[in-house]
């Protein structure tokens, strides 16, 4: 008869290392000063509700939409075609199989297909800009999309968000839930971005920057980038049916 204590080895979920969590509120990002909780957060033990998560989430969230660049035959999005792939891993480097990976991004002009984005940059009738897949047996995900554009943040003392891609990853537990963003190598705007630089640890920032794949490996059809994502937790890889 296994007990939870046996099923849950100590150290399965360690506290996050310092410097990884964004420092909040963020200077120059006014919304964070009105939304961020002001009272101290209450550290709680990882009980069963925290260490578990929906094991069959794809039954609720349909997966398999991975071609954002060519949503239908003959309808090609504007911009630089881009292949975006990588692995979802746990802290031990094990692949997380069957994780649900959601990707969304602005179009090549830096505008989102979202009713809240009313900036006067053009929408692209052939680009909605989101997709959802499950990782395969090696923890891999892949999307075919276009490189997003930069856009200004409409605040006093504005700044430009560098081109970036949003990721939402739903892994094996509530504790491993991750919403993050990915940036492109070599863009000077990365260092000016108040969201990326809210991470105190420069190494944590560097880990949010994708790697470009050399053209000799991908040919002349599209740009290619890879980006691995590490979810919190060890050993946290239940087999997906």
């Amino acid at each position, binding site marked *: 008869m296994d007990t*939870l204590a046996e*099923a*849950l080895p100590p150290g399965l979920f360690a506290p*996050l*290392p310092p410097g990884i*969590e*964004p420092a909040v*509120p963020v200077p120059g*990002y006014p*919304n964070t000063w*009105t*939304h*961020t*909780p*002001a*009272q101290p*957060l*209450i*550290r*709680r033990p990882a*009980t*069963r*509700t925290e260490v*578990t998560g*929906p*094991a*069959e*989430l794809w039954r*609720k*969230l*349909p997966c398999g939409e991975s071609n954002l660049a060519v949503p239908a035959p003959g309808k090609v999005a504007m911009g630089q075609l881009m292949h975006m792939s990588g692995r979802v891993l746990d*802290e*031990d480097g094990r692949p997380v199989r069957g994780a649900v990976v959601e990707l*969304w991004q602005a179009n090549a002009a830096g505008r989102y*297909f*979202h*009713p809240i*984005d009313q900036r006067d940059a053009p929408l692209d009738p052939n680009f*909605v800009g*989101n997709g959802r897949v499950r990782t395969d047996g090696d923890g891999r995900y892949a999307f075919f999309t276009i490189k997003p554009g930069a856009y200004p943040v409409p605040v006093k003392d504005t700044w430009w968000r560098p081109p970036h891609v*949003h990721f*939402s990853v739903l892994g094996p*537990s*509530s504790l491993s*839930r*991750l*919403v*993050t963003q990915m940036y492109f190598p070599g863009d000077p705007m990365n260092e000016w971005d108040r*969201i990326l630089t*809210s*991470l105190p640890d420069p190494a*944590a*920032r560097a*880990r*949010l920057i994708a790697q470009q794949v050399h053209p000799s490996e991908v040919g002349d059809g599209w740009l290619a980038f890879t980006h691995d994502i*590490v*979810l919190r937790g*060890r*050993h946290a890889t*239940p087999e997906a049916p």
Partner: protein
Amino acid sequence: MPDSIPPAGTLPPTAQHTIGPFFPRTFFTEGDNDLTRVNAAAPPSTRGETILLRGRVTREGGVPCLNAILEAWQADAAGRFNHPLDPGRHGADLDFLGWGRAWTDAEGAFEFRTLLPGGYDDPAGRRAPHVNLTVMGAGLMRRVLATAFFPDFPAENAADPVLNLVPAERRARTVARAAGEEGGIRVFRFDIHLRGAAEEETPFFED
């Protein structure tokens, strides 16, 4: 589970970032905020009491948050999770996924249709029935973690090892309020106030 565990944490976790204001509406499908069925085409669970959990998300000054994204996660009506880390998983309600997602409208309002969860025994102590809620949105650089308990269970709540970590004077803010019935279904109200003085801010947790 493998027998041995390698030395801790060779890879640091990827840092979290804000979900931003533009989490796609097109990611939502009918039934995402209905936990009583696995998806819109699936039959509803028959094991437990269906309830509505409603509330508003507000920021400093009580201003409603538009397009905040909420995710709910909870045990089934018998306190079980269909997950390898629950020793009782084989008795779990397979018509109940336990997870749902909602977004807030211009009034900051959200709603989940779900089952009244069951409590369970945990090494940390007996957990009272509860729903874990994650709030994400523009201006929130980190996920905000709240837990809704229920007024039906005062004795269980008083013994819950997580609720007991909340300063006594703030505990009432983490218990949903009974708010009548709608079509024979009990409604519970759980408002989430992101930022304010200790007596008004919802208690939030850190894992």
